[in-house]
């Protein structure tokens, strides 16, 4: 490989050779592992800065204003200004909080978001650890962030923080179910849980083969992060910011960081699972897989910013009803339909990964989506008709006899 095609592997080899000059092989291995982990962590944090800038500018433009434009050209240095502000803010610890748990919660929240990046495939060989359970690892460490929220809510010694934490955890745990079930459909088609294999099995993007799964993963991903329109539980105007109400300064910045890093991680996952990962045409004859992956992840994040700027916040009972009454049955039906359609298409002689097979799967998926939306529409119609008044109210008819009857009373009433 040469420098442009795969600069990271080339740089890694150069550094390993330089280290091999004065370290034993074990030392070289360990140092390279630590270096790779460090690079991934720094990448996550730098992307956090880029994400906040995209979000603020994007939401501002949707709301017909400009967004930050003072700090640096186009406000590009705004995240740095935010970081400095968070560092210089007074770090208040309220009375009677559980010190250890109070300080550990933001750390766990941001770390749980960052360790997802170990299993994300940036390129054909560019992955932190190519585990044969890649996507399952990502789903498992999502649970650690939930523990961090409970720790934050409990140790704050604040009723509202605790209530906010309960509601957030209820939402997060509920939305994990359609998330996992739809990812199982992807794993079923790819035949493996390894992220590299899933990307390699996408000559046709899974977005066209499994559109319903893609939409469900995107929605539940947005709900898992706690972004709008699912951010009832930790928005400033509701329950006064929920579980991170008692955090100020850098600790709050760590929670904020955890949320945006998690948002970027979910964008990367959707890009790898459904948008073909690092697959893309060559630019001027150079294969640049990492650039295509980056473009796709930023594209998905832009869709999330778009949803945040456009959609109103969902109420908690609507949110839960949407999950349990629509998304969970849809995910289960989706799993069955995808399995049946895949087997039918392959029995009919279509090889997996070709356009005709993808077309058959797409037809089945769209049929399922149409039926699901029709059911929802019918249920909505029924609810609307049930909420209307049963009978029309009595209309007063004005005629001469009526007026003559009532007129003497009206005239003689004084």
């Amino acid at each position, binding site marked *: 490989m040469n420098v442009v095609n795969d600069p990271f592997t080339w740089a890694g080899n150069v550094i390993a050779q330089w280290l091999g000059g004065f370290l034993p092989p074990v030392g070289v291995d360990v140092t390279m592992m630590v270096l790779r982990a460090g690079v991934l962590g720094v990448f996550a944090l730098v992307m956090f800065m880029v994400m906040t800038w995209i979000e603020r500018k994007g939401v501002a433009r949707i709301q017909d204003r400009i967004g930050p434009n003072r700090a640096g050209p186009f406000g590009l240095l705004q995240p740095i200004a935010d970081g400095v502000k968070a560092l210089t803010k007074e770090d208040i610890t309220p009375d009677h909080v559980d010190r250890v748990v109070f300080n550990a919660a933001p750390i766990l929240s941001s770390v749980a978001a960052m360790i997802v990046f170990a299993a994300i495939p940036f390129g054909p060989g560019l992955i932190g650890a190519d585990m044969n*359970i890649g996507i399952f690892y990502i*789903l498992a460490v999502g649970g650690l962030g939930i*523990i961090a929220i409970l720790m934050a809510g409990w140790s704050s010694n604040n009723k509202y923080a605790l209530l906010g934490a309960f509601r957030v955890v209820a939402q997060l745990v509920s939305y994990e179910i359609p998330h996992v079930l739809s990812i199982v459909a992807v794993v079923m088609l790819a035949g493996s849980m390894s992220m590299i294999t899933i990307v390699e099995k996408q000559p046709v993007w899974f977005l066209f083969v499994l559109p319903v799964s893609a939409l469900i993963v995107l929605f539940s991903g947005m709900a898992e992060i706690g972004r709008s329109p699912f951010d009832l539980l930790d928005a400033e105007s509701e329950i006064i910011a929920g579980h991170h109400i008692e955090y100020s300064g850098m600790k709050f910045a760590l929670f904020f960081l955890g949320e945006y890093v998690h948002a970027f991680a979910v964008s990367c996952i959707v890009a790898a699972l459904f948008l073909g990962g690092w697959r893309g045409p060559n630019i001027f004859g150079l294969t640049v897989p990492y650039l295509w992956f980056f473009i796709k992840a930023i594209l998905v994040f832009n869709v999330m910013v778009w949803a945040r700027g456009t959609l109103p916040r969902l109420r908690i009972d609507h949110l839960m009803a949407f999950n349990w009454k629509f998304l969970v049955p849809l995910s289960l039906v989706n799993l069955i339909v995808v399995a049946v359609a895949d087997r039918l298409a392959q029995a009919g002689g279509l090889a997996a990964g070709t356009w005709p097979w993808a077309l058959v799967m797409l037809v089945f998926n769209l049929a399922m989506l149409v039926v699901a939306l029709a059911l929802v529409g019918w249920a909505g119609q029924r609810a609307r008709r049930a909420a209307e008044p049963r009978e029309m109210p009595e209309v007063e008819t004005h005629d001469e006899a009526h007026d003559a009857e009532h007129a003497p009373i009206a005239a003689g009433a004084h």
Partner: protein
Amino acid sequence: MTTLQVMFILLGSITLAGGLYTVTARNLFHGALGLIVALAGVAALYALLEASFLAAAQVAIYIGAIAIMIIFAVMLTRGVMGAYPVKDLWSLAVSSIGTVLLLAVLLVTLFRFNWPQTTPAAVPADSIAQLGKALVDPNLYVLPFEVASVLLVAALIGSAYIARDKK
């Protein structure tokens, strides 16, 4: 000392420390957090044994679901934050004697038994695929268990329907 042994001792100590903290913490919530450390240590030990699926399943199920449920139960209990002194000397004595007896039995069993010392077999590359096939194989034993869980779900739905308050 191979690297494997060093890692095992490290991870084992973390697991044991978490477990010890769980049973000795005065604050129930801290005990629940110690349980999470112990569960994470067990997941790391699974990963050390190259049982990757089991390690991820341990984190996802135990830490991501059961530990959260335990924390909810702890939070909904009253009087959790207080310090609970030892009840009395008699219960302390009896529990100490019971623990020492159990430890003696376990140690005697461990040291007298001839543990077979074979080299572990290599983990097959498609272990997850084989696990999946074993879960649905009609000739093996897991399928009746899964059908029983369908029966449990039916019972749950039925009882929830019967127990709801009718308006």
